[in-house]
């Protein structure tokens, strides 16, 4: 039963990792940008949510009213003001600029909030659980995160393939010059993509802050989990990303079951094994 429990909890944890990964996958898909500060933005969103609950008394769930628009605006401004300048054929500028951003964000948060552990109090829902079978309980909170992750991925999928904005994203990603001939301003499109990515980041941050404790230094770890989920699932495949997240969560929990010190190690090893045997991930997107 312990093992089954570990696996089930791991699957639910995978939902959170898929949330970490979805934003990363989105901006890579649209502009081939890898945001090294992605994890730090998740942590920033968690701190924003914390400030909102503390200053307004809102339930952490409801902080999205403020956190989502703030992060979206930040994403758009950041892309147009800074990141658009780094896009081109060279890989160094975007990488180093987002790396610099990561250091600035981490230390900025450290300066404001200190290195203390923080956690948002979500109230009674934190301890609620459903008993599925004898000895197998599913926490309501992890389940909620998992369901939200599925919701987010479904919405992104629909946005990408069913809306004008998604069409513009795909066209711009295919060919920036020709997309301009359609009247699309690719700088604006990229700004929107980053805004949308940071909306997902905001959701991920809020749930990170409710599910686990966090401090300014945990960003890179979240980036790595998101990145591993993306690579395991296959680049450019959103549902693959969910499966990647689940595999990562399950491996971590099984590792922890064997030896508490092996939790993270087991996740990384799963990633490395996938990289060794299926370098393009389990479900690579087949290019048309």
């Amino acid at each position: 039963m312990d093992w089954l429990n570990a696996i089930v909890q791991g699957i639910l944890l995978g939902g959170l990792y898929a949330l970490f990964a979805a934003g990363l996958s989105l901006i890579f898909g649209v502009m081939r940008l890898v945001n090294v500060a992605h994890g730090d933005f998740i942590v920033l969103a968690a701190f924003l949510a914390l400030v909102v609950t503390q200053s307004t008394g809102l339930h952490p769930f409801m902080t999205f009213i403020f956190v989502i628009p703030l992060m979206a605006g930040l994403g758009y401004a950041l892309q147009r003001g800074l990141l658009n300048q780094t896009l081109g054929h060279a890989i160094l500028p975007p990488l180093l600029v987002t790396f610099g951003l990561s250091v600035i964000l981490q230390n900025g948060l450290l300066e404001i909030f200190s290195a203390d552990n923080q956690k948002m109090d979500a109230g009674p829902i934190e301890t609620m659980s459903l008993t599925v079978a004898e000895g197998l309980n599913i926490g309501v909170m992890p389940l909620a995160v998992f369901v939200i992750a599925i919701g987010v991925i479904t919405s992104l999928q629909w946005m990408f393939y069913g809306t004008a904005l998604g069409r513009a994203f795909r066209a711009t990603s295919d060919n920036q010059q020709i997309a301009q001939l359609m009247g699309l301003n690719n700088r604006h499109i990229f700004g929107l993509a980053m805004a949308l990515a940071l909306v997902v980041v905001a959701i991920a941050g809020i749930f990170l802050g409710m599910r686990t404790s966090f401090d300014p230094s945990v960003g890179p770890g979240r980036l790595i989990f998101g990145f591993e989920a993306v690579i395991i699932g296959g680049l450019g495949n959103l549902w693959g990303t969910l499966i990647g997240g689940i595999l990562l969560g399950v491996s971590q929990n099984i590792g922890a079951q064997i030896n508490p010190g092996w939790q993270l190690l087991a996740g990384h090893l799963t990633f490395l094994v996938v990289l060794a045997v299926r370098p393009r991930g389990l479900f690579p997107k087949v290019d048309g």
Partner: protein
Amino acid sequence: MPEPVLLQTHDLVARYGDFQALFGIDFSVSAGEVVAVIGANGAGKSTLMKAIIGLLPSPAGSVLYHAKPIGDLAAHEITHLGMTLVPEGRQLFPSLSVEENLVIGGQMNRPGPWSVAAVYDLFPVLKQRRHQPSTSLSGGQQQMVAIGRALMSNPDLILFDEVSLGLAPIIINDIYAALPRIIEQGMSAVIVEQDISRALAVSDRAYCLQEGRISLEGPSGCLTRAAVNHAYFGV
């Protein structure tokens, strides 16, 4: 020409890094006119199209459209003013279906006769393939999508860059057969074409480019074969 001038370039130059591809081009298109651009490989025809549409930067005053300086505008701004380019090599969006390629061409919502239905009317074969990935079409059908996509923005001026490139003669005929219907409502066109006789046959006026400079210009009907050969090959 009694018609007002629609597009005009003054001393237009274009570079790729250190390499200068165009030298002082003075080029114009009047409203309702069909202008051909001919020239050997590498003469600078595509470069001229890219400079006009804003894919290559130039000083504001070197390109005038509707008498307005547009040289310093970006391509996405120029297309909003009612000019578009059917790019060399078709360049459809591979992630988009046939119909999506058309729809995205019309996303600026400029009013005019062209709609998805009108394009299907012009190229009926596309209708059966509307939900297929654009990459699954034959070369000729892809070219039809590229033309349809450009028409969807209802431009006043459409630039065609070698629509016949790599197509079988019979397909080329099909494509050129659509030209009269495209321009019948007053749309102006620039046609870049390697096939000199076809270029002269479909156009009112023609320019010949040679190594980045205009080597010949005149009404298509009045250009003699010898003059064109000389302007084309520089011999």
